[in-house]
């Protein structure tokens, strides 16, 4: 039994934490938050690219570091802790993983090295309106190598160079790769609850597109698999954020006095933070199991991903809202970082499919497993 990260992986985590605490300070995040014309933290992004993290899970033959999925989980948690305002997840968790899983050899060679270096930035464009994506509702179409339709919101859609677009394709759906500087692509930034991450509406009007892999009509199955894998990485981001909320709340509760003693000495706060700790540990343990499933391509991946996702969404939401509550009035000011975590918690809980969707996936997976 070794249900923990290795010493090397922990070393990577410590280094990543040191780097990010220095380079991704609150000021860096707030520069993106407060300036509408700043879509992401450029310096940070440059450094992250240089360190090769984007290619941590990309094989060396394709220009990556060839480390593995566990290392990517470690990085995800650290990026989540500091609310890194960069398009990392879009490129590494969604786009790169999709190419790794479903791309043709040519696509792997064409995209992975440039994703790893950061020359290309990928994103995932599935949403067209309220509700989760399903083939029947899709309006965006893909035929004869062209995509037409409107996607919104697309996280990092205005920063990315390439999008993976879910589109109707005959009676089914396909995933298509679109270069976003192509003709027929119009991108408009949109306002969201989470201004430290950039979002766009993208209109495709006969934009040139290339099928992901070489099998048509497989889009929903591919998306399902892409989301399963991304869910685990995002769960680590969420766990990182939730852990940081708990730390902030503890720190404040030990400091802030009311009625002559620290508020952390009152059971209302103590038990709130104990509840937060319990949820965070449940989320962390489920995320670890997801990491194991991801790194070993285990048959348990679907339920591990769903459980990690459900637990992490609940933990981050609870931690972020009760962190504000613990901070009282201070927590409701723009200047204190609490609300940034509340905003990020909400983004991460809906971005890769909302908790209700994942609960349903989880139960379906359990039914399938127990029927077998």
């Amino acid at each position, binding site marked *: 039994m070794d249900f923990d990260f290795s010493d090397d992986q922990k070393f990577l985590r410590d280094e990543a934490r040191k780097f990010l605490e220095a380079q991704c300070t609150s000021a860096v995040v707030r520069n993106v938050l407060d300036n509408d014309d700043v879509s992401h933290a450029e310096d940070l992004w440059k450094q992250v690219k240089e360190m090769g993290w984007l290619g941590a899970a990309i094989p060396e033959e394709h220009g990556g570091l060839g480390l593995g999925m566990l290392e990517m989980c470690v990085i995800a948690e650290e990026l989540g802790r500091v609310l890194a305002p960069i398009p990392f997840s879009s490129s590494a968790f969604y786009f790169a993983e999709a190419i790794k899983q479903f791309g043709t050899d040519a696509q792997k060679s064409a995209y992975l090295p440039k994703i790893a270096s950061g020359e290309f930035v990928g994103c995932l464009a*599935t*949403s067209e*309106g*309220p*509700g*989760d*994506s399903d083939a029947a509702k899709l309006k965006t179409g893909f035929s004869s190598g062209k995509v037409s339709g409107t996607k*919104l*919101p697309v*996280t990092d859609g205005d920063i990315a160079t390439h999008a993976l677009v879910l589109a109707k394709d005959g009676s089914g759906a396909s995933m298509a790769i679109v270069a976003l500087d192509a003709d027929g692509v119009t991108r408009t930034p*949109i*306002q*969201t*609850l*989470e201004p430290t991450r950039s*979002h766009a*509406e993208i209109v495709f009007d006969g934009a040139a597109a290339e099928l992901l892999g070489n099998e048509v009509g497989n889009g929903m199955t591919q998306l399902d698999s892409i989301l399963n894998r991304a869910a685990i990485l995002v769960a680590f981001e969420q766990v990182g954020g939730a852990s940081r909320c708990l730390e902030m709340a503890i720190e404040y509760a030990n400091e802030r*006095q*009311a*009625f*002559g*003693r620290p508020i952390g000495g*009152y059971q*209302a*706060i103590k038990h709130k933070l104990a509840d937060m700790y319990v949820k965070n540990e449940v989320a962390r343990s489920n995320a670890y199991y997801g990491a194991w499933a991801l790194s070993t391509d285990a048959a348990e991946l679907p339920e591990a991903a769903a459980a990690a996702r459900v637990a992490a969404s609940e933990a981050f*939401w609870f931690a972020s*809202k009760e962190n*504000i*509550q613990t901070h*009282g*009035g*201070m*927590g*409701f*000011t*723009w*200047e*204190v970082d*609490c*609300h940034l975590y*509340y905003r990020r918690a*909400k*983004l991460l*809980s*809906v*971005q890769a*499919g*909302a*908790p*209700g*969707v994942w*609960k349903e996936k989880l139960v379906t997976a359990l039914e399938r497993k127990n029927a077998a």
Partner: protein
Amino acid sequence: MNFDDTEDEAKFRAEAVAFLEKNLEKKDAGAGRADRSRDDFLTRAKAWQKTKAAGGFAQITWPKAIGGRGGTPIQQVIWNQEESKFDAPTSPFAIGLGMCVPTVIAFGSDEHKQRFVPKALVGDEIWCQLFSEPAAGSDVAGLKTKAVKDGDDWVINGQKVWTTGAQFSDYGIVLTRTDPDVPKHKGLTMFIVNMKDPGVEVRPIHQASGGREFNEVYFTDVRIPDSDRLGDPGQGWKVALVTLMNERLAVGGSPGPDWKEIMGYARDAGTMSDGAFRAKLADWYVAAQGYKLTKFRSQTALSKGETPGPENSIGKVITANHLQDICNSAVEMQDHYGIISDRDKAPAEAIFQESLMWAPGLRIAGGTDEILKNIIAERVLGLPQDVRVDKDKAFSEM
């Protein structure tokens, strides 16, 4: 058991409705929140207050001698119910007439009453309440703003926070520390302060929700004549309790989208068939009804001349968390799309997104969830107070 007015109540309601219909437009149900520029809103609010006062509806429970109607609390409730159906700009006066001016009436001199009450009543002067400080929120009595006696004046220095309406207020009541060498509750004194004094600086607070409705107020060597003291020196806490008890009976007005709105949204979105959502909807309905009907029980008590107790504190405990939960569910129902807050892109959705960002503030403002539960436990259920380690300590020694 019935929902009908008594004969007297019905008569009053008819008068109120007639007056409202004559003077105001009905609220347009479909319009959502109008985009009101603050200046225009304030002008309209002042005009409406003047009209109300002229009609005898400004402060219904106040004695006629000071410009009120000499009416009953239930008449005030009825007025509030009816007024809320119209496009009535009332918010700038809520705190002043509801809390500050009654404190002036209770503790001020005759000169104060003559000078301040009429102008407040007709809307010429607006008041704000200056109690909370950055280091004194739930524990207001731990405040630090100092008032030091200097001849016939007091000199005020310090900072207040979360002050509603400070930016357009003419006067305020300010709670200060005048004696740091006694236990914290015993060294406080209340004053009337002129908000236009050059030593008073009002800065809007940038809230987590993005808005700037509240203020910080800085006092730098603000001189207040001793004659503008309310209550004796050192008696400020008792004065403040009167202010806080004068908080008028909360009326209607859900703070944001409720079960009906999310049900409507779900119907439009075609997600009403989701069993998990249906079960939550039932819970929301039950809680919202429970809150509304509990208010009806309080109003019944009022209508019978009884005084409803602190049972009303259940209201905000229910509604603030309820709002956060409903908005969160609405956002999650939208999946990735739920993150959009752009009113033009997603108008049907934006009410949920906005309230989601507002809800954390509602759980804190006017008493946190935790403080309200303490109040219920101690004042309604009779459980012992928590240990107060600072009870007998001089403030300066803490």
